[in-house]
């Protein structure tokens, strides 16, 4: 049994920043992470960090761009916190030595990015995430913060009051990969989830193999609602064969998209008459697929991204990493030929519902970074807005988890009087209805923190034992492949009712198969078979939540396109889609968007680029 004030789960940018902030606020902090920190997928972020640093720019412009990019589904207090605090956080990184690209006068460089009214994307070559991740980890090493790396968090230790809003999180239970030990980590003050993305529900994704949505799934099953899960970003420029990301920085520097006929389609076919290639990501991804579907794609699959005209010097100076990626993973020389690109799953705008300090409705439980939904990004995240989210909200949650004071939040969490009931027309039963009976012990007399942790530890030890004991059934890889296949086929850029329902049927079938899952590797030494089997369980919940939201939201907003509903419907849909686990029978409901900012209300306008 380990005991700390604050436990941070996950050690990418958000987790590292939270740990530093909590420790600076006086807390005894431990990080528990399934990968060593420098292996985190923050390191793969390429483009940059939006921050209003320069003359002529200000946070309100950045906030406006963010709300517009979000197609007015972001909550203004969160978007404004991001844009107000990003400049100081970026300079903080600079003070910690981050190797930003530099202008001639020695100041950090900024470049244009999609959907921005000012070139405010601060960058370090085309490997900004790598530098951010390593700089933050260096600070964690300097501070001597305890890091339990290659420890996989299995579950949260949360009390079991009937209403999630009455529950408290007292810690986590984790599995040590190297030895198979299952141990409890008690958190006296708070648990911060920073588990990153969930791209592994798709089979063409820029996300790492480790991005399995563990934090979202764990919080969800502990009663915390998941918000706007249908809002999945498909990045317009990923390499066709592997899904490796080609940074928006290429278009930011002047890269051009062509179809098979050599047309600059973003302009010539009217997708974005003003901004062209630098329209928002959702717009460019749909344009590319529309071209391919109209028979103007190359090999009926992709389009070309050409940066040759930028010249070798500029490319090597600002985008060198792109040359390596295109050569290593697609066999293309970006200096000599255009690069093939197509849309790929990239980012989850939705996630664990939090307020603007990272708090969830469960006391003592926080979420930050990609696994969280404050919501900063609404229905479409702008390029360059993910990295500032990590550091701004990582810091906020770290400070607050350690007991620091904050202003009263303006974003509500959990069910309130403003919540609205919803419904999903599902062709199959959702969730794990067979579980409902098993949770009958809820509502017992208030347990001590110790008892909650102890009970969770026992349950998780039993779960591991059960999985290892079985020696026949279905292997996780088959189930995972089935989920990835149906999500990619049916819950992609273009969505329609029949396909979404098919996905729910397939997910249900996968859940049934998972009841029979077994782990073939009997070892307690570095058993990745076991860990992936548990991850796959999380993917099932994630896939279902995404699809439920996509089926419920009968409009076209941001990244969410529906064949049957071709317009944004502000009269009815300026609200967040919420999904609660409800002891195994998922429930859909809504909460209103907060469009009132500090000095202005972000009135929805027609969104064109």
């Amino acid at each position, binding site marked *: 049994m380990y005991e700390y004030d604050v436990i941070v789960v996950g050690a990418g940018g958000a987790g590292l920043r939270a740990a530093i902030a909590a420790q600076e606020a006086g807390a005894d902090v431990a990080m528990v992470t399934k*990968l060593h920190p*420098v*292996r*985190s*997928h923050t*390191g*793969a972020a390429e483009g940059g960090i939006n921050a209003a*640093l320069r003359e002529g720019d200000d946070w309100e412009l950045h906030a406006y761009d963010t709300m517009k990019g979000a197609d007015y589904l972001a909550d203004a207090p969160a978007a404004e916190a991001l844009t107000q605090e990003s*400049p*100081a956080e970026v*300079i903080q990184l*600079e*003070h*910690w*030595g981050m*190797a*930003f*690209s*530099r*202008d*001639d*006068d*020695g*100041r*950090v460089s900024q470049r244009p990015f999609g959907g921005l009214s000012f070139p405010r994307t601060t960058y370090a*070559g085309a*490997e900004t995430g790598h*530098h951010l991740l390593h700089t933050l980890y*260096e*600070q964690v*090493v*300097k501070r001597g913060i305890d890091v339990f790396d290659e420890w996989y968090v299995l579950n949260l230790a949360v009390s079991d009051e009937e209403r999630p809003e009455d529950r408290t999180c007292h810690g986590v239970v984790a599995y040590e990969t*190297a030895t198979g030990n299952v141990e409890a980590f008690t958190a006296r003050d708070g648990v911060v989830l920073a588990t990153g993305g969930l791209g592994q529900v798709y089979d063409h994704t820029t996300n*790492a*193999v*480790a991005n399995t949505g563990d934090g979202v799934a764990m919080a969800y099953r502990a009663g915390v609602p998941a918000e706007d899960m249908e809002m999945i970003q498909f990045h317009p420029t990923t390499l066709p064969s*592997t899904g*490796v990301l080609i940074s928006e920085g290429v278009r930011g520097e002047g890269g051009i998209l062509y179809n098979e006929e050599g047309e600059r389609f973003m302009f010539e076919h009217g997708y974005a008459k003003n901004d062209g290639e630098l329209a928002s990501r959702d717009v460019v991804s749909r344009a590319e697929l529309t071209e391919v579907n109209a028979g103007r794609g190359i090999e009926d699959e992709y389009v070309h991204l050409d940066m040759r005209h930028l010249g070798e010097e500029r490319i090597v100076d600002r985008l060198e990493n792109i040359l*390596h*990626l295109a050569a*290593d*993973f697609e*066999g293309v020389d970006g200096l000599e030929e255009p690069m093939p690109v197509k849309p790929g799953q990239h980012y989850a705008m939705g996630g664990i519902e939090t307020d603007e300090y990272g708090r969830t409705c469960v006391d003592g439980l926080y979420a930050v970074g990609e696994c969280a939904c404050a919501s900063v990004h609404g229905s479409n995240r702008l390029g360059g807005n993910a990295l500032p989210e990590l550091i701004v909200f990582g810091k906020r949650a770290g400070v607050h988890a350690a007991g620091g004071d904050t202003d009263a939040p303006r974003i509500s969490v959990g069910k309130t009087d403003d919540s609205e009931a919803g419904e999903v027309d599902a062709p199959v039963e959702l969730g794990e209805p067979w579980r409902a009976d098993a949770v009958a012990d809820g509502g017992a007399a208030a347990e001590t923190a110790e008892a909650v942790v102890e009970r969770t530890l026992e349950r998780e030890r039993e779960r591991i034992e059960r999985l290892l*004991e079985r*020696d*026949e*059934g279905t292997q996780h*890889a088959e189930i995972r*492949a089935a989920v990835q296949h149906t999500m990619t086929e049916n819950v992609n850029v273009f969505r329609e009712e029949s396909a979404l329902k098919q996905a729910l049927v397939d997910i249900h079938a996968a859940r049934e198969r998972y009841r*029979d899952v077994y*782990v*073939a*590797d*009997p*070892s*307690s*030494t*570095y*058993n*990745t078979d076991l860990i992936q089997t548990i991850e796959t369980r999380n993917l099932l919940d994630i896939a279902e939540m995404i699809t439920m939201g996509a089926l419920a939201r009968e409009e076209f907003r941001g990244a969410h396109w529906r064949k049957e509903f071709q317009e944004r419907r502000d009269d009815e849909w300026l609200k967040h889609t919420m999904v609660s686990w409800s002891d195994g029978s998922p429930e859909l409901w809504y909460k209103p968007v907060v469009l009132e900012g500090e000095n202005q209300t972000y009135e929805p306008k027609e969104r064109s680029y």
Partner: protein
Amino acid sequence: MSTQRQQPETESESAETEGETATDRRLDEKRRRAEQRERERVEAEQRAAADAERYHLKVFRYDPEVEGKQEPRFDDFHVPYEPGMTVLDALIYARDEFDASLTFRHSCRQAICGSDALFVNGRQRLGCQTQLSDLDQPVRIEPLPHQDVVKDLVVDMEHFYDQMEAVEPYFQTTDRPDGELEEQHQSRENREKIKTSTRCIWCGACMSSCNIAAGDNEYLGPAAINKAYRFAMDEREGESMKQRRLEIIEQEHGVWRCQTQFSCTEVCPKDIPLTEHIQELKREAVKSNLKFW
């Protein structure tokens, strides 16, 4: 499903009389089925081997606690080839289709997380960055040499991390600007000078390739020295910090151990000129020693 249900019943009956035996029997049963699976796997392998469109991998296997794997061995896998397939793709295929216990670290698949440095056909490489088509068959895949093997292709990285942390691997300066929004300036030239050194992904390939590190466990090694270089050469840290950094890398097991064999530079997947960086630090150290002499 039915077999899963019946099994515990038999157990609970016997458990009342002989608790030990029930467990033993279950383990026996499990072992028997494991052997059956192993036979099936070998058969599937043999069928697969007949297929010419497949790549032949020989993969190092070891598990300290699983019977049959306690003595290191090589397993053969025949993986159907697709254009663009990497060593990592082939390992994933072998694991998901043939043997779920095949164990290796991997995450990003794009040469940035540094998890999958392996010893492939006698050379340190990242699995995700190595095309199968560039390799002779059979493709021999082993864990990184000179590191303790935990299981299969997974090595213990702790010593590598310890060496990285021994060089104070974090930015330090005495004259940070006062203002919250006031940045330190760095010239483009200086940023360019440290650029390659900042690209290290901590994969450990260099350390594994280094004869000196193999013979001297306390040698800081190329990655850690490169990390020191990254800060020592960063003009933002200032002259006094640079002196401190040089003292660290001048220690007994520091830069002077390097015999400029260039093996680290040859295997670095991020093309960092490690040997040059080590040499430059040696020169800096000499210059600075002369200054104080």
